[in-house]
């Protein structure tokens, strides 16, 4: 129960990060996405890489990303994810929301 609620807390942020990373247009596998998150966030979101996968599958079920099997740079079979058009729309919306929220919180903090 505790584990699930923590996942819920992270979910929105993680979803946004994944969509943002896939925005470049390249299809990426889970490991690559996890590495990108680590690099971009400066190791902040490094722990518990496993929680990335339920998020990826969730996004796939929503129809925002699309998965297909391909061959990785080391010649192994890997699952590659790609952003769909409705995923692009979703990213736009969530990014806007995020920005609004951030601005709002920033203003509140400045005021105090």
């Amino acid at each position: 129960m505790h584990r699930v609620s923590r996942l819920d807390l992270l979910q929105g942020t993680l979803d946004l990060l994944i969509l943002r990373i896939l925005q470049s247009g390249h299809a990426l596998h889970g490991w690559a996405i996890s590495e990108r998150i680590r690099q971009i966030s400066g190791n902040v979101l490094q722990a518990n890489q496993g929680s990335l996968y339920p998020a990826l599958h969730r996004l796939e079920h929503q129809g925002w990303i699309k998965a297909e099997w391909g061959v990785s740079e080391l010649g192994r079979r890997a699952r590659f994810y790609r952003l769909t058009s409705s995923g692009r729309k979703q990213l736009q919306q969530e990014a806007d929301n995020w920005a609004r929220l951030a601005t709002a919180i920033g203003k509140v903090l400045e005021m105090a």
Partner: protein
Amino acid sequence: MTLTDLRLRLRALFLRARVEQELDDEVEFHLAMARHKHLAAGHSEEDAIRLARLDFGRVSSVKEDCRSVRGIIALETGMQDIRYALRSFNRNRNFVLAVSGTIALGLGLNLALFTLFNAYVLRPLSIRDPYGLYAFTWSDSTGQEHAFTWDEYRELLKQKSIFSDVAAVQGVYTRVEGHAFRGDLVSGNYFQMLGVGTTLGRPLLPKDSDAPGREPFIVLSYDAWQSRFGGRLDIVGAKIMIRGFPMEVVGVTPREFQGLGESPRDFWSPLSMAHRLQDGPDLFGAEHPESLEIIGRLRTERSVSAAEALLLAWSKQMTAQSTPEHKATGALLRSRATSIPLTPELLAVFSPLIAAFALVLVLACTNVASMMLARATARQREIGIRLSLGAARGRLIRQLLTESVLLSIPAAILGLIISRLTIDAALWTVFATIPKDMLELAHDVARPVDWRVLGFMFFAALISALLFGLAPAIQATRVSVISSVRGESTSDVRPSRVRNGLVIAQVALCTLLLIACGALVRTTMAMTTFDIGFHTDHIIAMEVTDSGRRRVMDALSTDPEVDAIASASSVPLGGRLPVVSASTGGGPTIDVARNEVSSQYFDILRVPLLKGRGFSIEEASPEAPVAILSAGAAARLFAGRDPLAQTIRLEAPERVVRIVGVASDIVTCCIAYGKDAAVLYSPASPSKTGNLLVHVRGEVETERHRLDTLLAALAPGAINDIHSLDQYRAVGIYAFQVASMIGMAVGGLALFLTLSGIYGVVSFFVTQRTKEIGIRVALGATTLMVTTLVLRQALRLASIGISAGVLLGIGVARVLASQMIFLRVFDGAAFAAGVLLVLSTALAAGYVPSRRAAEIDPINTLRYD
């Protein structure tokens, strides 16, 4: 549920192993890449593996989370949709009421029909393993099906490899204390085989059939015990007289068991009592009558077709010594699991009824679809905003469909209530109108709401939800985002076009239904007033046993109220007559129906003799070589020549008869088939053979009752059946009267639904064009002009629908014309009445909105925007 989601979930469902393997591979790949990275950073192989696992977290819980994603998404959005729909229902309670009420009307009607169908046709009899029970018959080369002799039954009992048990049954139809009393003579194993016990006393046992006539035992049905013997608890051990023979009651069956046939049984007795209770040849005598019905419990390992093959071989062996036309060529097993077996013929007979009822449900759905469209149009702005905010169209359609399905739940419950009320009302009507003598043969069974009825209810409700929900959902989400956000809903938005289409379809179906109902009602009226060619008044028909005939004739001939007695092998209006081939020397050979009648037959029925004379007293025997032809038979056999004193040859059995008279045509078989085409009358005597036709002076029903009681005392058990000819006539028409009543009820409901459909659309038309009408009025349009504008809209829709309905009616009539014999399918009056009724309904439905339109105040409407 998005389409992607559905696809992935189906994939997970059907390709579970593959989806799991992919998940394993994906996780494995991640761990391999992590290990690779740690190795490159200089860790040992062992550390690299440990670190990779540490970074990843618990593999099993990650996989579990991935799995739950497949299930959760749909559930989440589904709950959202439901919450959203319930909130909007709460704001529009009248809308919810109108929709569920309309669907419930159509659903309730169909549910009532299904409940009855279930009770008689689908619900298994309350016996042990009903689906293992089969009736067996064999047929000869002419297709004639045969019953069995006692010896054949004894042989069949030895065939243990096909049936685990076989019972023999023979129906008995007699009268006890002025009431019809129907029973089955059964082999001793009957109750054991069926697994039926008793509420009181004991059932019949194999030992009861040991020797013919030794033990006169009888088991009563629960209903007979209650209605005829007042539910007396000391009934077991009491003696009751059947055919003048005392029988000892040994038990009473449970209420649920009323026998295996289509009509309920009042009693059961051992077959060994046949010679006491049965008229006709002795079952155990030298004649070997084929009079037993065979019902067996099929061995569980045998399929029906395999058993039929074995039984065919057995039948062929049994009939190997018979004449060629009496050899078995087919063997047939019919399920006896339900009181009426479900056959294609049964469905064919009831298909018009089923179709009419289904049409009413479709009409109700059309109405609701129209209401949903109106609502969707009113919600255009909301839908437009949601679309412009990026809501997927599929998601919105799903939302609207969720609303439909939710609406169908109260509709289903309301429908169930309506169906119970409908059944009660229908039964009340039937009991109030049924011909009196038919009532005692009516088979009333339990009509429970079981899982089949509930299943049908939910299935029908769901189908109607899709019917009324899908088109509006698709249509409503096809709005222009720009204009709807601006709040414009112009009259050329497509929903109103779809609504018009719906109303036109509705008018067409309604017209079709009304035309069909009109034809049915007119047919029934025509049958009621049809000239049957003879008079039924003051005549009582009796079926008497051969052994009691002498005493009955003595009692009747000395009775002061009895005017005349005639006999007929077939009572007029009593059903089909046997057919013989007849030919003149050199002339055509035709099939004629044959009735053996006494000379008084023509007198008391007042059938005019057109030529010649009736039978003389000396000729009063079927062997006398004379005959009277019906006018139709004379015309077909002699084609204009004088038939008097001519001879004709009859076949099977072959003989030559001389024509002594020609009688005018009458209806002998059934009113529905009209007058018989050709009848040949042979002479007979009431004191020797045939049913008695008794002409009485007084009121016929009083006399019938008096004679029934009198004869029960003077000639016990001699009367099998006694009815007035008026009742025969009433019974013959009754089925059509019931059909007419159902037709009028269905037609009325259809008309009501159409009325509300047209009203809805025209009202909406007025609301949508309020601005336009306001401008017209401001520019000087009169009340009449505005009213006409609105009414013209109603009439335009109605006239298109009516034309389509009339075309449909003609089409249906052409199909039915080949099946119905008496029914007048191309009935101009029915067509005209249907069209007029629908047209006036359309006008009435348009009138109220048109008045509202006429009262529009231009100032208010123009200020509105």
